[in-house]
């Protein structure tokens, strides 16, 4: 029974990371109908920016919340810039091209980041700096169920960022413009919304969230390497689809469900099919409810 609760806690912790990354995918897809394959690599770059900036600030071995937040902010800003550049240089020119071309460009950017990362950062896994220390903040008497400080930090940071995002999307003018653009970009531009700027902002915000994901993962799983984004990116994307792509709440819901499902399947069944599970979920969702759990299906007008 204890194992069940531990699995649940593990699943939610994992799921909140998927959710953070899924938000970036869903935002970009909502506005551009583009699967930004490079998103998972922006996440990777975020983790590495954290690595190098902690070194540069000489805080690699001084755990404290202050250092954690500093590194987090630096990484988010850095990746925001990276996301902006990617959109500007690689995606804007092909905005009106056929979908498959955009997909391939995205794949190209993803591969470019990965392999350049291998050359620049080296392929050997690096140890993420110790900028936050772990401790158990809750444990049952037998030690069967534990919640650690890391889990709590990840959940709270994740939730905090999501709340900020919600605020931006629903309570600011920028958010309104973003929603309008995702509904129909042509109408939005007719209304005087600078669509190009809005799209750039979407990428910046999405990338910043990915960077946050990278830092949080770096803290909890201190091994980082240039190819770390691939699997987690794919699963986060599936989480976004599961929840309803284009829908922010869906991304969060999807992320949590993915995390928990994966945890339970691996814990109680065939761990070897872990990756296949993710795709299995995807296929089932797309076959039976392609709009996702919280999404709505739009009818294609002739």
């Amino acid at each position, binding site marked *: 029974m204890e194992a069940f609760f531990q699995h649940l806690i593990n699943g939610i912790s994992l799921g909140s990371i998927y959710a953070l990354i899924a938000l970036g995918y869903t935002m970009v*897809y909502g506005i551009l*109908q583009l*699967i930004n394959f490079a998103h998972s690599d922006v996440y990777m770059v975020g983790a590495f920016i954290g690595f190098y900036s902690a070194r540069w600030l000489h805080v690699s071995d001084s755990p404290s919340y202050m250092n954690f937040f500093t590194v987090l902010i630096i990484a988010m800003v850095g990746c925001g810039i990276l996301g902006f550049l990617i959109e500007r240089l*690689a995606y804007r*020119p*092909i905005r009106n*091209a*056929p*979908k*498959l*071309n*955009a*997909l*391939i*460009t995205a*794949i*190209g*950017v*993803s*591969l*470019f980041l*990965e*392999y*350049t990362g291998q*050359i620049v950062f080296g392929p050997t896994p690096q140890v993420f700096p110790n900028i936050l220390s772990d401790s158990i903040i809750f444990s049952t008497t037998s030690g069967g169920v534990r919640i650690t400080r890391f889990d709590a930090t990840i959940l709270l940071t994740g939730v905090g960022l999501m709340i900020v995002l919600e605020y931006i999307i629903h309570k600011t003018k920028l958010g309104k413009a973003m929603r309008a653009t995702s509904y129909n970009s042509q109408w939005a531009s007719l209304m005087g919304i600078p669509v190009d700027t809005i799209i750039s902002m979407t990428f910046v915000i999405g990338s910043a969230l990915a960077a946050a994901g990278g830092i949080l993962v770096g803290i909890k799983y201190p091994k980082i390497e240039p190819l770390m984004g691939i699997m987690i990116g794919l699963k986060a*994307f*599936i989480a976004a*689809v599961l929840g309803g792509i284009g829908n922010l709440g869906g991304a969060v819901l999807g992320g949590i469900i993915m995390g928990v499902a994966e945890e339970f399947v691996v814990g109680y069944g*065939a761990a*070897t*099919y872990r*990756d*296949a599970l993710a*795709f*299995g979920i*995807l*296929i089932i969702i*797309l*076959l039976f409810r*392609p709009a996702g759990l919280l999404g709505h299906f739009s009818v*294609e007008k*002739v």
Partner: protein
Amino acid sequence: MINVKRTLVFPGLVLLACWGVGLIFPDLFNAYFQTLVIYSCINIILAVSLNLVNGFTGQFSIGHAGFMAAGAYMSAWLTMTFPHWAGPFLGINFFFNTIAGGLLAAAAGYGVGLPSLRLKGDYLAIVTLGFGEIIRVVLLNIDAVGGARGMYGIPKTASFGWAAGWVFICILTVSRLVNSTHGRAFLSVREDEIAAESVGINTTQYKVRAFVISSFFAGVAGAIFAHFLCYLNPNSFNFMKSIDVVVMVVLGGMGSISGSVVAAIIITLLPEALRPLQEITKLDFRMVIYSLTLIVLMLTKPQGLFGKLEVSDIWKKYVRRSS
């Protein structure tokens, strides 16, 4: 109009050129060169078959490696378990095992295609990707075919003759198909699916047909691969392999068979051609260059090298111009 004979002229010329080069530079026509040629043939079959789905029928399939794996493992398993079931000659066995591999792949294509082809664009892409990965993970778990340790000791029955023969059959099939009423249907599905439905074309059925035929040839390519490398490992059939084939199709021009042929050869040879660069700089820039090529290609010439034309069309254009 795609003329069957004309479509085969170009690949035929390429094969002749290889043979000729082999005569002039005998040192060149060694095992290394042969390896490259056979891998080119395998990739040509993969690219042309994928083009049927992605190019001519306008669907997004990026899980081709899964079908290749199905064909590879099926044929290899048959060869290893029943070495002489079709007679004493290994070659004949190879031929039938290749077909068996192709059939299993086609069945997988049917299984994947039927439910998924209702989906559009990006969604279909991700689903096919997912199926490709599922097939790979399943193979990793089946101990009878080796799992992570792989299947080794497969007899090397795939020679240039067999590979070239299957290339011929593949191109012939696809070009004849495209040049028929079925081909018209495929093109109509690509151009405007709703309009096609409204004039009575069962788009789902045609999409599935394209998918099944395409998967068959992917399986065949896998069988040739298995009997040439003589060793199979599920990790050879991952997402990256599927992406390689998609790149070949897009580079060559979706809707152009000749384009797929040329692009397949280029993509096969590119990593080898870039080796001198690696030796000079001591760093491996190949994948970086590969990815940059993708991006630049999409930005500058998204219709690929040939667009929707075949070599015969370009030939006609030049001939007409000069006369």
